[in-house]
């Protein structure tokens, strides 16, 4: 096989790993709380700034900056839920989406005020590795492994802990769970915090690959939503697989044409999927 094509395939899978985390977080929040966080990519952006600030400005070691990023964004997720989402739980879905859209503007504006529109780079890079005939970026590979690990931890949390079971149950049936003695408000809070932490983890993986600026969320936000919906909103496994599918489409599309062309194909693919299988590609 053409080594460049092979490289595009590998890169697609690696890219999918990066998309997978925010898609999982978004899916978790949607599946449990039933609200779409339109500002999810902006939470990731805040996390990227947090890592950048702690590492380059405050002089923290990189691992500590990464470790701090998760709880910081988890707190953002909690605040988002408490201040914006909870009061709107009984409102029409569109009002909820628009309110989180307002938070998107707030975070972009705040980031512009605090950090200006300049592009900030972490300046960390790992040497590329050569596997057979294919060059693989070390940073991307590390990010990919971390994403898989994060997804695995999330899966174990949902599968083997009491809270995780309650989360899965409430995603399945909102009415009955309170009767079983589960406080949905507490579960919503936990899901929001976990969703935030996942955004924080995604931020750690993205900040080593992309420069941070206030509008960086717009570059991967829309695609994250599409991945979520394609996998079936609330369907974690579907979203996870859809992330890799989108990663492959973009990477292979870019191999045949330009990067822009590949995004057009990915978005068009999403639209067609919505027409043909609105319940999601991987819905049972």
């Amino acid at each position, binding site marked *: 096989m053409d080594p460049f094509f092979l490289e595009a395939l590998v890169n697609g899978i690696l890219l999918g790993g990066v998309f997978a985390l925010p898609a999982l977080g978004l899916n978790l929040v949607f599946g449990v709380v039933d609200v779409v966080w339109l500002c999810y990519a902006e939470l990731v952006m805040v996390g990227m700034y947090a890592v950048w600030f702690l590492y380059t400005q405050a002089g923290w070691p990189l691992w500590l900056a990464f470790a701090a990023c998760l709880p910081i964004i988890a707190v953002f997720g909690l605040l988002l839920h408490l201040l914006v989402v909870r009061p709107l739980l009984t409102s029409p879905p569109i009002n909820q989406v628009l309110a989180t859209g307002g938070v998107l503007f707030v975070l972009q504006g705040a980031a512009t*005020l605090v950090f200006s529109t300049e592009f900030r780079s972490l300046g960390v890079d790992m040497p590329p590795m050569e596997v057979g005939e294919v060059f693989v970026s070390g940073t991307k590979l590390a990010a990919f492994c971390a994403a898989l690990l994060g997804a695995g931890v999330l899966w174990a949390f949902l599968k083997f802990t009491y809270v995780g079971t309650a989360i899965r149950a409430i995603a399945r049936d909102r009415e009955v769970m309170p009767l079983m003695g589960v406080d949905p408000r507490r579960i919503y809070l936990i899901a929001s915090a976990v969703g935030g932490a996942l955004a924080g983890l995604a931020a750690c993986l993205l900040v080593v690959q992309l420069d941070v600026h206030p*509008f960086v969320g717009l570059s991967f936000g*829309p695609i994250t939503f599409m991945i979520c919906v394609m996998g079936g909103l609330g369907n974690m496994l579907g979203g996870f697989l859809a992330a890799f599918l989108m990663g492959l489409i973009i990477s292979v599309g870019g191999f045949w044409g330009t990067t822009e062309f590949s995004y057009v194909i990915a978005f068009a693919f999403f639209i067609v999927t919505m027409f043909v299988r609105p319940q999601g590609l991987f819905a049972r």
Partner: protein
Amino acid sequence: MKDYILPAVALAALMALPLLSPPDYVMHVLITMVLTALAGTGWAMMGRYGLVSFGHGAFLGAAAYTMAILWNSIGLTPWIGIPVGVVVAVLMGMLLGYPAFRLRVVGHYFALVTLAAGEIVRILIVAMRDITGGSLGMTPAQAAPGGGFLAMQFDKTGFWWLSLVAWAAGLLAWRLLDRSMSSKALAAISEDEDAAASIGIRVTREKMKVTVISVALAATAGALTAQYRQYLNPESLAGLGISLQIVFGAIAGGMYAPFGPTIGAAITIGLEEGLRIGFGTEFTGAAPLVYGLLLVLFMLFLPRGIAGMFERRAKPAAAKKAVGEATA
């Protein structure tokens, strides 16, 4: 006919505004407001029936770029270019709308499909950089001396008239729609699509109608805005950012009342200009920050927008009147 005398007089009075020779800056803000109001009015045509589009920016861009490219490449006057651009945008809207309505993509899904479509248009504009100038944007060619009218490149007064006429046409379309059966049908569809279909409402056709009107208004606003600014770029005429701003304006003003989006445009543009003057350009972040906060606060406390506030006050009075009539 009587119903239209007062609005016509009001419109004429607004059109006479340049006679007072207000400062250029005031005219500039007013023109921007009216064009934003037109885009918001177009969006709210669909929005108020539950068809929430996050991709309306794409239609502004489609019409504006069609017009500018036709002018720059073959010298077609914007007087024809704008209608052509609007037709292009409407066709795009129909191309997306028909399968979406037919296959019943609704709610969150509809919003996300339109979001994807809007992004596609933005990326295509960037990708076709040979003719669109890509992210750097493009400027319509300067008209030859004396050819300003044909090139639709005239002073602020001319644009004020043009924008006002387009805006008034948008409000007229709103009123005509409200008085038609389609409005009732669409209201029924937004309540319960199955029930509406079961009593014989042609769901797809009604949705298509309102989509065409909505897209046409937004596209007109986009083309006129580009022509007024004499500058086009993908960020301000397509994509998620501008689409959300249109939505915000319409929601803040109130999308259920004809003047709601106009009130919203006055607020958003007023806010933007006020913040720019108040904070200066170095605080560019302040405008979206305040915007976003307001959007959240509106959703929390005033989900029907400013116009909704008056509505609530007006309703009890109307109810009383109806009761009074019944007993009299």
